[in-house]
């Protein structure tokens, strides 16, 4: 019988993270630094709002774009936080997490063969999402020596007449990098000069430890070529609610809405009710979690550097990306042995792109107790490797 699966999907590699997940699932007593979601419970008042919405019968479809209440609240939030003005009627689309929003924007703007520039190491879904949109992902490396910031010279080398968009994710998963002011402006200028759509995935925007983060939405001059993606998962520990949003020029949002309308209909109604509450009353929760993450980050970076695994102090998100080059192992070997011999799960850097080789991603979205145990075990492993 012939294969029914498309060539594109057949050739799509499975996420490198998936393999580790399968191994960990069969092990006991593993401390996991492999988790890309907050360990905090969703703030109770937000969950209560979803429960109340259920009790009040909010169990029907909503407008394809999302409820007017939530879109208004998103517009208020962006104005309040980033001084960005979006018309809630036509420039905001509520999605099933940022993942859906990313898929929508790529499918809405890419013709077959169009190229999309993005930086590596990056979130595992980017190249795959571009390929699924029948476009060509073009990766641009970033380096620890430059705090994983993206250089325009590197972009210029790879831009072609087919380049349609530049996809950015700062604060970055997996490196935790945040753009500096100069870099931020350069990238916006580059997108304008090359007439590209700038897709900025800012899902970690609230996890900014130095105040260095700036949203591209705060720049009126690139407003017409910016699609901002953000969501509730990381800021308010709401991953399971599956709630995100996209803001951008009416034409693009309208195109995204068409795909969303036929493929999804509308984001979960209960989640949208919870989202309103999060944006209205959730500032203190964000502040509390950010402060806790900051201390864990400090602890983890100091500990890893202390054992000779060189680690850049990241300015955002909840990941550190230590170099394991000094051990002489590949990142895959290091992560596998760390898991098998010392029961700590971390994700090999190569899962996030070629230039992630030589690094591992450690998430500190886990308790201090777990971090202390993990640090002890990683220390034992490093010491054993050094003795060889």
């Amino acid at each position, binding site marked *: 019988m012939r294969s029914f699966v498309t060539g594109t999907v057949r050739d799509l590699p499975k*996420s490198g*993270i998936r393999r*580790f*997940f399968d191994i*960990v*699932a069969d092990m006991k007593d*593993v401390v*996991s630094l*492999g*988790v*890309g*979601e907050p*360990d905090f*419970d969703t703030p109770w008042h937000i969950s209560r709002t979803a429960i109340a919405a259920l009790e009040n019968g909010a169990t029907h479809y909503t407008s394809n774009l999302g409820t007017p209440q939530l879109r208004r609240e998103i517009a208020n939030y962006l104005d309040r936080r980033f001084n960005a003005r979006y018309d809630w009627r036509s420039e905001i689309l509520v999605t099933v997490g940022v993942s859906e929003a990313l898929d929508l924007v790529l499918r809405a703007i890419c013709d077959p063969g169009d190229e999309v520039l993005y930086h590596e190491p990056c*979130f*595992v*879904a980017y190249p795959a999402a571009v390929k699924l949109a029948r476009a060509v992902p073009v990766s641009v490396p970033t380096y620890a020596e430059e705090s994983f910031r993206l250089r325009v010279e590197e972009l210029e080398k790879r831009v072609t007449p087919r380049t349609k968009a530049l996809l950015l994710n700062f604060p970055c*998963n997996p490196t935790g990098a945040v753009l500096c002011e100069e870099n931020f402006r350069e990238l916006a200028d580059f997108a304008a000069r090359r007439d590209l759509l700038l897709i900025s995935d800012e899902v970690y925007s609230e996890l900014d430890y130095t105040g260095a983060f700036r949203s591209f939405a705060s720049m009126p001059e690139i407003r017409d070529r910016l699609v901002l993606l953000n969501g509730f998962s990381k800021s308010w520990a709401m991953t399971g609610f599956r709630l995100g949003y996209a803001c951008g020029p009416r034409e693009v949002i309208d195109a995204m809405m068409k795909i969303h309308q036929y493929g999804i209909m509308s984001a979960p109604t209960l989640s949208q009710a919870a989202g309103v509450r999060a944006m209205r009353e959730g500032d203190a929760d964000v502040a509390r979690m950010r402060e806790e993450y900051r*201390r*864990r980050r*400090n*602890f983890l970076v*100091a*500990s890893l550097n202390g054992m000779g695994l060189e680690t850049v102090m990241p300015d955002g998100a909840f990941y550190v990306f230590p170099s394991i080059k000094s051990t002489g192992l590949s990142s895959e070997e290091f992560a596998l042995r760390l898991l098998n011999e010392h029961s700590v*799960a971390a*994700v090999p850097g190569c899962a996030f792109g070629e230039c992630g080789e030589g690094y591992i991603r450690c998430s500190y979205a886990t308790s*201090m107790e777990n971090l*202390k145990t993990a640090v002890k075990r990683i220390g034992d492993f490093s010491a054993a490797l050094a003795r060889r």
Partner: protein
Amino acid sequence: MDNLLEELKKNGRETAENLAKMLQSTPAEIEARIAEYEKAGIIRGFQALLNPNMVETDDVHAAIELKIRPERESGFGSIADRISRFPQVDSCFLMSGGYDLLLFVTGKSLQDVAHFVAAELSTIDGVLSTATHFMLKTYKDQGVAMECRNGGEERLSVTP
């Protein structure tokens, strides 16, 4: 609140070395700051937080509302102090609202608490009335839930 006090409130047994890493300080400085807080009386002690539902004991806990007559010179202070000195009294708060002092007390048995209220508390000069409420079960204490919810265990261990 000072960030060191915040961390110690979460975990009083945290080592100076770990605290130093979290707060970007040095172990020596952390130890010095804790010593200073102890000396100043800001840190009054360190205790284990037990789950009373699981500790094997016949102890009985009660909350007692007290109405008292303030004294001319010292207001509520000296009578609150007199009451606080009883070892049965775990906590004593001055309250706004329908009564003046709220006590949390521990006794060996129901009779023990009853005797304490009738023979000791009520007979103190200035105590006008008492209302005793026995505690049946602890759900949460000092910010810590006593029953483990296992929602967190369903969290996937490796995710993008």
